[in-house]
């Protein structure tokens, strides 16, 4: 396996508050990497630094490097980085004024693609990849926000897939979903890693164990341990990790 994304000595601040501190880790290509840890440990901040969304927050800043295929994303334009690194958010956030079709097509359309044939094909492919096609194929013109919560989240995944990113970041994508919708998304993540590099933030350890090839444990903004998921859960190298995964704090 080769590393698609390499985080090197990354720190990030909100104003004067340091959210993550000197983190280095590799996200392998065509694999799922989970980031676990208690609330407020900097999991979301970490992945938001990878697609440079952290800097959108007023007074936020970063130090360190994030290499995508060996090149620092902070020396490239944020827009081109974000086209290569898609993101799915904690709460499903379809564009409120757009239909199902328009939501999926938004990434292409707003980047200047007008060819209706290409848009049709992309929407079909993305919705199928996101395992949503069968449920919405007769409702492509319905508002995106009219779908159920789980469907909206898969719509957001389809929207992210439509621009054919190389990496997909997921920020607790199932935290607002019921077990059935969660299972669907997890199946989907399993399929996605055949083509994409996936990094998923979760506070659900079972979820990390189910979907991830690698798991990183963060605590108070620091990377405590990272390993193959199985090894991390069965033979944690740090006492802190063991305490967290056995539920003694968190």
């Amino acid at each position: 396996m080769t590393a698609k994304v390499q985080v090197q000595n990354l720190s990030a601040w909100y104003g004067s508050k340091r959210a993550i501190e000197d983190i280095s880790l590799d996200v392998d290509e065509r694999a799922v990497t989970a980031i676990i840890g208690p609330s407020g440990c900097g999991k979301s901040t970490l992945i938001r630094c990878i697609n440079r969304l952290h800097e959108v927050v007023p007074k936020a800043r970063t130090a360190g490097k994030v290499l995508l295929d060996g090149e620092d994303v902070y020396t490239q334009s944020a827009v081109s980085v974000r086209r290569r690194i898609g993101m799915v958010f904690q709460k499903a956030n379809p564009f409120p004024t757009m239909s199902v079709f328009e939501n999926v097509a938004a990434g292409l359309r707003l980047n200047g693609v007008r060819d209706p044939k290409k848009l049709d094909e992309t929407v079909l492919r993305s919705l199928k990849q996101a395992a949503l096609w069968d449920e919405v194929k007769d409702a492509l013109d319905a508002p995106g926000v009219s779908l159920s919560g789980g469907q909206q989240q898969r719509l957001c995944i389809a929207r992210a897939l439509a621009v054919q990113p190389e990496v997909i970041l997921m920020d607790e994508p199932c935290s607002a979903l019921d077990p059935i919708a969660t299972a669907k998304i997890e199946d989907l993540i399993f399929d996605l890693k055949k083509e994409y590099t996936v990094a998923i933030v979760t506070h659900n350890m079972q979820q990390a164990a189910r979907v991830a090839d690698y798991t990183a444990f963060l605590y108070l903004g620091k990377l405590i341990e990272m390993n193959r998921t199985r090894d991390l859960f069965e033979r944690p190298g740090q006492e802190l990790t063991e305490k967290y995964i056995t539920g003694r704090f968190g």
Partner: protein
Amino acid sequence: MRFPTHVAGLPLRLDREARRLWKDLAMSIAALLCVVIALIPLGSILVEATARGLQAIGPSFFSLDTAFGGIGNAIQGTLILVALSSLISLPVGILTGIYLSEFGKNPLGASIRFFVDVMTQVPSIVVGIFAYSVILELGQAGIVSTRLVFSAISGTLALSVIMIPFVARTAEEAMRLVSTSTREAGLALGIPRYRVILRIVLPSSASALVTGALLGVARVAGETAPLLMTAFGSGFGFSGLDHPVESLPHTIYTFALSPYTAQNQTAWGASLVLVVMMLLISVFSRLLLRSRYRVGGAAP
């Protein structure tokens, strides 16, 4: 015969629960009374304006100029003044609102927001005297014709000064209703920020934006004070942007104070027309808010 234990479903006791039920009844009645009191002025305005206004309204009421007993030129003038002010204020105001909402989280933005807030509080008669003196000074300095002091142009200037801050603030509020997560979803797709604002945030706040714009229109359509010193008023139809122009509020103002009963009646007719215009704008903006897509991001 037994003594009744309840009155109107409420217990005739003095314990805690009974007292609470009686208090609840008393407060409900008080609240209802207050609503009635608040509605009395509104209701009587509508009734009075309708009853008296309808008497004035005849077939020639809308076609004749104020000099001949109609209000045709006043309606025309109000439409022209409002249209011109909107032409200036809507773009400037909405762009200011975009700046405040999307780029205004810094000291410059805060001071502009404060300034805009103060502008919305300036009494409209002060705006009138300001517009009047600006044009007068410019006229005396030979930069513009002194004819413009009392003209449609100076009226437009005064109304725009009132409308711009109003539209700017409502536009900012409208765009703030769009959730951060919607903006971030756009940015995360690799869409440049200006396009996220123009193609995602603006459409998402469109109905609230239009409502704000319509309320701005309603606000200036009813202004009298600033027009007294600027648009001035005229008994005849529109004769050029550099000439005085009549408006509905001005007609009401002058005719209501007139000693002639016929003119008093015309004032009521003009009032009714103005009230109906406001009502239509208000209803229209409410309908827009009920559009298919709502503002404020995804449902939970």
